[in-house]
């Protein structure tokens, strides 16, 4: 299993990870992915793709039903069993609903004390650091006395980041970091995340349904469909020339403002199938505009292509990126 596109040592390694809920729903199916130290990797996919589950497996919220996830060479399961607090400090997850991720009856100040108390961080030191982090994130100290429902979505998101940073993590997983934010303030938050990555040497796994965010911020992107990774490539290459028909269709749905650059999106037939009973063969064949008979019966494997790209398709590059 070659690791894609990364010359950096892998910090995170997913090896054949599957997650099955209630014995029926295959949220993740045999996922293999590596994230190098300091990389910014994007994860795109629609409902049922498994991207949220992947994030939760990484931070240890959901145990894999089979396969292993390694962070820094040791499996997550092992680290959680032997030194849970240390592992928690390594990998943090920023939840999609930032306001709801803060305890509703605690002030922001109390919430930010949680990591200090739980991990028994030296108090005086931690206070100084917190002040520094707040300034860095553009939050004034009067936010500390407020309750989650009194602050804006953007502020809540930054509080979440502050909470994560207090533990000096190596990895930050961000689930839809710009969801709910107005376009006019998205840029600020993303700039912030990029600055933090640079200054602290963080590794990011970024989930977003906003393809423009993925395109501008990430170096590498994995496209997921029904619990599987269908393509994994350098972001610029993926957007320029997607190999998997689903990637091509998904990327073409992004409406563009500039009338000169506008093109017809590829409109897929049918709905996203259920994860309980995925289609036979290639899971995408029911909606694929260029499916062949082989696709109905023969499930394709995630195989490497040139340039460090991986694709799960029998006939990659058979769908032109922007329709006709």
């Amino acid at each position: 299993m070659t690791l894609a596109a990364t010359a950096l040592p892998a910090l995170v390694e997913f090896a054949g990870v599957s997650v099955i809920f209630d014995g029926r729903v295959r949220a993740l199916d045999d996922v293999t992915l590596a994230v190098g130290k300091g990389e910014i990797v994007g994860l795109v996919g629609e409902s049922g793709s498994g991207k949220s589950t992947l994030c939760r497996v990484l931070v240890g919220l959901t145990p894999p039903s089979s396969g292993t996830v390694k962070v820094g060479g040791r499996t997550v399961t092992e680290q959680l069993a032997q030194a849970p607090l240390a592992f928690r400090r390594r990998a943090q997850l920023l939840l999609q609903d930032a306001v709801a991720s803060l305890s509703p009856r605690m002030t922001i100040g109390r919430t930010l004390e949680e990591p200090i108390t739980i991990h028994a961080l030296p108090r005086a030191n931690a206070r100084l650091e917190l002040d520094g982090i707040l300034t860095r994130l553009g939050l004034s100290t009067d936010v500390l006395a407020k309750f989650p429902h009194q602050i804006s979505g953007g502020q809540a998101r930054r509080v979440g980041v502050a909470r994560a940073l207090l533990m000096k993590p190596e990895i930050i997983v961000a689930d839809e970091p710009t969801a709910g934010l107005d376009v006019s303030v998205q840029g600020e938050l993303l700039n912030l995340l990029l600055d933090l990555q640079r200054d602290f040497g963080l590794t990011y796994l970024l989930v977003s349904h906003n393809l423009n965010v993925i395109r501008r911020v990430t170096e590498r992107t994995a496209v997921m469909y029904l619990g599987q990774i269908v393509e994994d490539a350098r972001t610029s290459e993926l957007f320029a020339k997607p190999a998997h028909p689903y990637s091509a269709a998904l990327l073409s749905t992004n409406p563009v403002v500039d009338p000169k650059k506008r093109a017809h999106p590829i409109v897929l037939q049918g709905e996203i199938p259920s994860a309980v009973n995925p289609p036979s063969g290639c899971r995408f064949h029911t909606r694929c505009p260029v499916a062949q008979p082989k696709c109905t019966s023969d499930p394709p494997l995630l195989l490497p292509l040139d340039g460090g790209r991986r694709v799960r398709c029998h006939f990659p590059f058979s769908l032109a990126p922007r329709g006709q």
Partner: protein
Amino acid sequence: MNAAIEFARPLVSIRHLRLEALTARGTAHILRGIDLDIGKGRIVGVVGESGSGKSSLAACLLRLLPANVSRLDGEILFDGVDLVPLREPAMNAYRGARIAMIFQDPMTALNPLFTVGTHLRDVLRRRHPGMASDEARRRSIAALSSVGIADAALRLDSYPHQLSGGMRQRVMISMALAVEPDLLLADEPTTALDATVEAQIVSLLENLRRTFSGSIVFISHHLGLVAQLCDDLCVMYAGTIVESGPVDDVLGGPRHPYTRALLACELDDEAAGGRLVSIPGEVPDPVDARDACVFAPRCPHVREACLAGMPALRDAGPGRRAACVRWEEIEFERSKPAPR
């Protein structure tokens, strides 16, 4: 094509629309004097971020307002008749007959206790009272097929929870179309849908133009979507319209600083690297009733004149209007070559 607004009488003519509501912190100015024309057969996109009042504008057109509304002033001329002073029974005659609406969340907009067939039948019977059952059924099947639902006859007996999000949205659209309205309001109809499903609905809406002869108001926060679907664009900020006009003209050459800033923030085709643009500051508090340009605190071109009073929506080109006292100056400054 793009000057049609001025020459034909518009279907809807909104003048000086004000909407205020009482909140615990004071009177919120949700709409601060809206002037808007919706041409017959045109698709008008209304774009705005949080606090812009775009959803409230749609609510005003249908007069489905929350209980804490304290003031609704101005004029909404619908085909010549002012809707604002109408009493409830008269207003109700318009809803579901001449004005229809599609909502953002298809899950909560359909009654979980009724089948799709019942929903459609109710809509049809409201429009054509006393319609026979088999006629209603025939028309329902046709309505569902026209929005791309396969096995329409089977679907009539499905309950909302048995359908996917995209399917439910199609059902809602077919219900709205069955009304045969003069005006169709669509409030973020694709926001809750997955990208590929959204593409299907967008394609459906585009094809609609050929069969639907009424006007459409398409409300969205997504500029790209509006650019693709609409003829005219109306940009809202903090309860006011800051710019309006044909969509390609406005997006190709915005006159109002907010529109320009918003476009710059759209993470478009640029490759990675380089700082991302955002607009510093925050949307003004609706309780703040200051009589000045609403965008002034965040505007890079602000001058004293901007604080003297709310700028009127004035001419900014053929069929275009912008609420900026300095738009000509700014255009001029921008057209000058950069100093060496």
